[in-house]
């Protein structure tokens, strides 16, 4: 169970695969028809790619965790048709004022190893 105590700073917990297919884009536009069309991944899909990686890898989790903060660094927008690999690493963790914070690093690359974007997520862990 991915409780606060379970997380080990510096440890990579795995890699998740995401196909930036026409279906994936269509699913995105089904929720966000107001986003522009194009040949590149809409930058808003960074949340989809990292969320899927999180749910694929960081499980099981206690209920009650909350989003604290997120930071994204874009290096390039992937092209339609590319395969993305996202690794999830525990960057650090801390307790502050009675709350437990875990900072998870996400790194998304294409199959040739080129960096697409990075994320750093701060979660307030319930247990």
């Amino acid at each position, binding site marked *: 169970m991915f409780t606060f105590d379970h997380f080990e700073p510096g440890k990579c917990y795995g890699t998740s695969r995401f196909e930036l297919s026409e279906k994936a884009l269509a699913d995105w536009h089904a929720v966000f028809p107001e986003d522009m069309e194009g040949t590149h991944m*809409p930058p808003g899909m960074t949340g989809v790619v990292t969320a899927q990686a999180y749910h694929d890898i960081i499980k099981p989790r206690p209920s*009650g965790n909350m989003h604290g903060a997120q*930071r994204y660094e874009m290096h390039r927008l992937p092209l339609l048709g590319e395969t993305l690999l996202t690794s999830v690493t525990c960057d650090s963790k801390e307790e502050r004022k009675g709350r437990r914070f875990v900072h998870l690093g996400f790194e998304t690359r294409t199959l040739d190893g080129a960096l697409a974007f990075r994320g750093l997520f701060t979660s307030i862990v319930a247990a």
Partner: protein
Amino acid sequence: MRGKVLLETTKQADYRTIAKYGELTNDHNPIHTDRAFAMTTEMGGIIAHGTLGLSLIWISLRKTLGDEAAAGAVLDVRFTAPVREDDVVTAGGQEVEDMPGLFDVWAKTGSGRIVIKGTATVPGAGTRP
């Protein structure tokens, strides 16, 4: 010098949108779709995924500044309040005065409650004097 204002993006977080976003992100936490369960939590009802509002900030950045600018952006935000079922959420931002390319960004509900707050740094997109 007054900087760029991001074009706003608005969306209602109705049940269908929340459920579809959950499918998109593979997030099936019952707090987002199970009303009976959500009522028993401290939230007292269904809430939208936090990144749903964040998506609207990205859409605002993209439609104002374009893909080339978004491709090099750094977005840094805090989630400050939950988005409740049927809240209408608007995202936008404003370039910081005398700091080209640095934008204050936000997402807020119709009542003015700020749900996401932070900055976007977009190299090359700054207003030139």
